[in-house]
């Protein structure tokens, strides 16, 4: 069965999702990967405000290709989530991040933070960047524009195909 959900979403939706559920996600999400995560956590360390609100939001681990003329965005598949393991618990605990989208397994510390959150982890299809770009209807740089492909974008998406890889109860498909 495929569930259709819309982001951002609160804890009730997080709790309704189970590992193995197939999801078509619509709505608005943030992007962020290595360099953006490092900067977000550095701002938290300094007690400064973040440039984006993460409460009840999803972060998609992606560094898209530039848009060619007439297109919203270039190819935009997930990157390996493990590199964000050092940062994700902080964003779940301090900012109430509702979930993450990426590819590959997460650390035990991330899963524990997801249980506390609660937060959910979705797997997008790695290597299907062209297909995924078709689900993105709008893309604007929201913060850290100097990072190029690693900037934080606000994406508006429609029916992005995902799988709940790890749920907020700690159950994992990996």
């Amino acid at each position: 069965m495929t569930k259709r959900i819309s982001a951002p979403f609160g804890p009730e939706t997080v709790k309704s999702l189970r590992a193995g559920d197939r999801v078509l996600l619509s709505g608005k999400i943030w992007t962020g990967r290595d360099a953006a995560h490092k900067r977000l956590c550095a701002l938290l360390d300094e007690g400064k405000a973040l440039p984006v609100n993460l409460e009840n939001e999803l972060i998609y681990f992606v560094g898209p290709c530039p848009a060619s003329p007439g297109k919203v965005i270039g190819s935009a598949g997930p990157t390996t989530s493990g590199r964000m393991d050092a940062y994700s618990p902080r964003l779940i605990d301090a900012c109430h991040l509702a979930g993450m989208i990426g590819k590959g397994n997460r650390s035990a510390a991330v899963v524990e933070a997801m249980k506390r959150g609660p937060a959910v982890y979705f797997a997008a299809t790695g290597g299907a960047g062209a297909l995924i770009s078709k689900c993105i209807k709008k893309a604007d740089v929201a913060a850290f524009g100097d990072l190029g492909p690693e900037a934080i974008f606000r994406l508006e998406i429609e029916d992005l195909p995902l799988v709940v890889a790890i749920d907020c109860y700690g159950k994992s498909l990996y």
Partner: protein
Amino acid sequence: MERIVKFDEVVEAAAALCGKAACFLPEDVKKSLLAAAEKETGELGKEFFRQYAENFRIAEADKLPLCQDTGFAVWFVEYGTDVRLDKGDIYAALDEGTRRGYTRNYLRKSIVSDPLFDRRNTRDNTPCIVHLKLVPGDKIGLTLAPKGGGSENMSALKMLKPSDGRAGVVKFVVDTVVSAGGNPCPPTVVGVGIGGTMEKAAILAKIALLRKVGAPNEDPRYAELEAEILEKINASGVGPQGLGGDVTSLAVHILFHPCHLASLPVAVNINCHAARHAQIVL
């Protein structure tokens, strides 16, 4: 007889290959993916194979990169000893070709200036990496194998002891691929370099990825070894995207080289299911 090739001809050919490699999956890789889809019995796995096929069709039709990670531009050059460029050198030509190709085709620029301190994006995907081989003749053969970070990160090299033997090689390769899980976007192509020195094994592993996917080794002993490693990898159940299934790797390709009597170097270079490459002879 010396033949003069224009620097700009090399630059433009290289730039065109950047766009081609990023957007058009080679026929052998497509065939291998479609054949593997038939073998997959997992429900999620089948869905991923459906998405891979749709992805390479969209990429080709819309000239969109197959994957947003359009990679490090790794060039394998067969440079005829009778060729001379009218100006500059092959390294400069390939850097300029990479720069133009990645910019003109809206490919992602993924190279940072140094690995540890600034990590500033160079904004044009240079410098590229060039593996140069001198060959007889008056031609320049260019092969581009753009390499994504996710699969490259899961690669490994180990200096085994000769006493570790065949079983040691099987174990190291299988463990490397299985512990990579979903990170390198399985089903993967696994390049293995055995023998030589440390760096020779690593380069062989990368060159092995260029073979037509699933074409068996010419040496029957190594062909059998490839089949055994592939079977063990696929018995792991890691599956497409690491979310379970029958097909974790599409193929294992081994290249070997004579080595020191004290050594048994083994390198494993993993490629994602979008095993991209493109070539031209000038």
